[in-house]
């Protein structure tokens, strides 16, 4: 399966190394049912990765749903670069009358991956074939209400932000006019700063990074939260194949950056910022979790004078 939208890494050495081994990248998708997650994933991967039909059943509509965390891995080729992309879907999130229990389920999944890494690291004989399943980025789908973040959004991102890179995404962006979209993005970012919600906001170092990087990151930061439109349908428009949604009043193009930020998001996820995100996951998020976890056990250690053997 060949993916489009080329991208090049800054250092050729990394590229050569990665091309041999193949990169691993894990994205988790979180949002209420019907917010366009599956369509987004299928649009991103350019193939029908997620097919779920049981959520359309009338009888089951009233039934309490638990979050069903399902990872799916696909092999992609980004400009000659092999990418093993794992998409973790979370159907059932946000669908119930009470959605608070779902937060814990997702957090547990993420922390479980960290625990696996920790136990691997502490082994005397490490497993060379061990798979790193840590979630590198979590895309949180925000409803296009026009009013700012909802209580659930704030609580969720606050809970998950310290453990994983969170990027808020406005789904079904074709329900807002350009002015509404800009106003909404502004409100969301105001909420994020007001409630001190930790998100991945394209950090850069004024002193260390080069100008190009700073410019790129500033631009991407200004686009937050990304507006996306998803579609698996294609039509021929002006002689070229275009992924789009057809309304009686016009045609919305997925890859047109004037219509939505999908193409920029895709580029950022799978090409330009893939390594940055992975690095932060390992160097910052995993480390802080590890410190917390070990200092808790260490404390326990002092009290009980026990030796904890890992593995």
């Amino acid at each position, binding site marked *: 399966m060949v993916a489009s939208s080329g991208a090049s890494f800054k250092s050729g050495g990394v590229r050569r190394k990665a091309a041999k081994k193949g990169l691993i990248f894990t994205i988790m998708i979180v949002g209420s049912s019907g917010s366009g997650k599956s369509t987004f994933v299928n649009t991103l991967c350019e193939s029908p990765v997620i097919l779920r039909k049981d959520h359309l059943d009338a009888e089951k*509509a009233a039934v309490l749903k638990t979050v069903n965390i399902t990872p799916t891995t696909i092999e992609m080729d980004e400009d000659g670069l092999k990418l093993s992309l794992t998409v973790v879907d979370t159907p059932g999130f946000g669908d119930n009358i009470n959605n608070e229990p779902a937060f814990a389920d997702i957090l547990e999944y993420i922390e479980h991956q960290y625990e696996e890494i920790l136990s691997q690291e502490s082994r005397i004989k490490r497993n060379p074939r061990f798979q790193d399943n840590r979630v590198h980025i979590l895309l949180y789908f925000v409803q296009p209400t026009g009013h700012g973040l*909802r209580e659930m959004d704030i609580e969720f991102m606050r809970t998950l932000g310290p453990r994983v890179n969170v990027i808020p995404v406005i789904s079904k962006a074709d329900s807002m006019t350009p002015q509404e979209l800009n106003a909404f993005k502004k409100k969301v970012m105001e909420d994020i700063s007001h409630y001190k919600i930790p998100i991945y906001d394209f950090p850069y170092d004024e002193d260390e990074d080069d100008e190009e990087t700073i410019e790129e990151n500033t631009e991407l930061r200004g686009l937050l939260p990304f507006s996306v439109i998803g579609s698996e349908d294609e039509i021929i428009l002006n002689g070229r194949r275009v992924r789009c949604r057809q309304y009686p*009043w016009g045609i919305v193009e997925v890859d047109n950056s004037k219509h939505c930020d999908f193409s920029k998001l895709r580029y950022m996820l799978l090409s330009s910022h893939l390594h940055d995100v992975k690095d932060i996951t390992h160097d910052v998020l995993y480390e802080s979790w590890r410190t917390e976890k070990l200092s808790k056990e260490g404390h326990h250690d002092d009290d009980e004078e026990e030796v904890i053997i890992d593995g």
Partner: protein
Amino acid sequence: MAPGPVGATNVSVGIANLPNQRHKIVSRKGTNFTVMVVGESGLGKTTFINTLFTTLMREYKRPEHRFNKQMDRTVAIDVVRADIEEKGFNVRLTVIDTPGFGDYANNQDCWVPVIKFIDDQHQLVMNHETLPNRKIDDLRVHVCLYFIQPTGHTLKPLDIEVMKQLSSRVNLIPVIAKADTITPAEMLAFKERIRDCISTHDIQVYSPAVHSDDEETTRRNTSTLAAMPFSIISSENDVVVNGQNVRGRQYIWGVAEVENENHCDFKKLRNLLIRTHMHDLISTTHDSHYEAYRVSKLTAEGRTDNDPAISARRNFEAKMKEEEGALRKRFAEQVKVEENRFRQWEQKLISERDRLNEDLDKQHTLVKQLEEELEEIIAARKR
């Protein structure tokens, strides 16, 4: 010519004019119409209300103030009133909004304030029925519009639960909000699934009578009914399309028009609410929902009759009878006691009399004896 029915005359009595008369009466008095909108925030409820009545009924929430209430976790009931006039016809319009509904991570029982409000209005009217002054501010909800999120899938558990509770108390009309997110093909499938869900879970949505004497009306009613749940797009702004000013939303890729029936069902819904079925909504609220509330309330209180006055009187009478019976019994008992006393006294007197009589007899006998003895003695002396 066959004889007509008894009482028929050839002179027009003006019965055919009754509908017109009613119209004249109503248009002079004006009418009271209460609409409630229920749904998560950001679904376009405020915009819809403002579009429907072409007036700024509700101000938008000030975005700077949202920090005060975002994490509040409450559901409020907002009442907004306006007097609207069109072509001499007055409507005292009340719009009830439910900010906070369904907006939180945990929405358990978020429908309780809404249900309580509806029931309270029925209760108020019920309380005032028996008072001398029956004129009150009637805030009974005539129609409730439930806004469904345009997910494209099916109803959510919250939707099902709330609609079930609402449909038994008020005229419920589900609408699909922000319909410009859904393509026509998706919309057909979505509506189908929603209708399926509604019938599976036994939700009684408002369904007006379709058949009417006028064929045009019947046709219109059928097409209206077939379009439920109504998809709506709302806008307070006008956009120029083909040289004309229309209500719509301007996108980069085109203009979604509010009043274009190919784009959404706004027109159908507006006609139903304001032109054709306002009266029906008001009367069914009184005739069926209010009555149902009364029956359930009164049977819950243990009454078996529908009319409170008669049953009250009956209760009162029953009580009186009971007390009367008790009194009578007490009286009878007292009488018995007294009678007994008298009887005993009588007995005593009788036995006393007998005794005295006996004594008297004895004395008599003694006297007689003595007399006889005396006579004997006198006779003996004489010889």
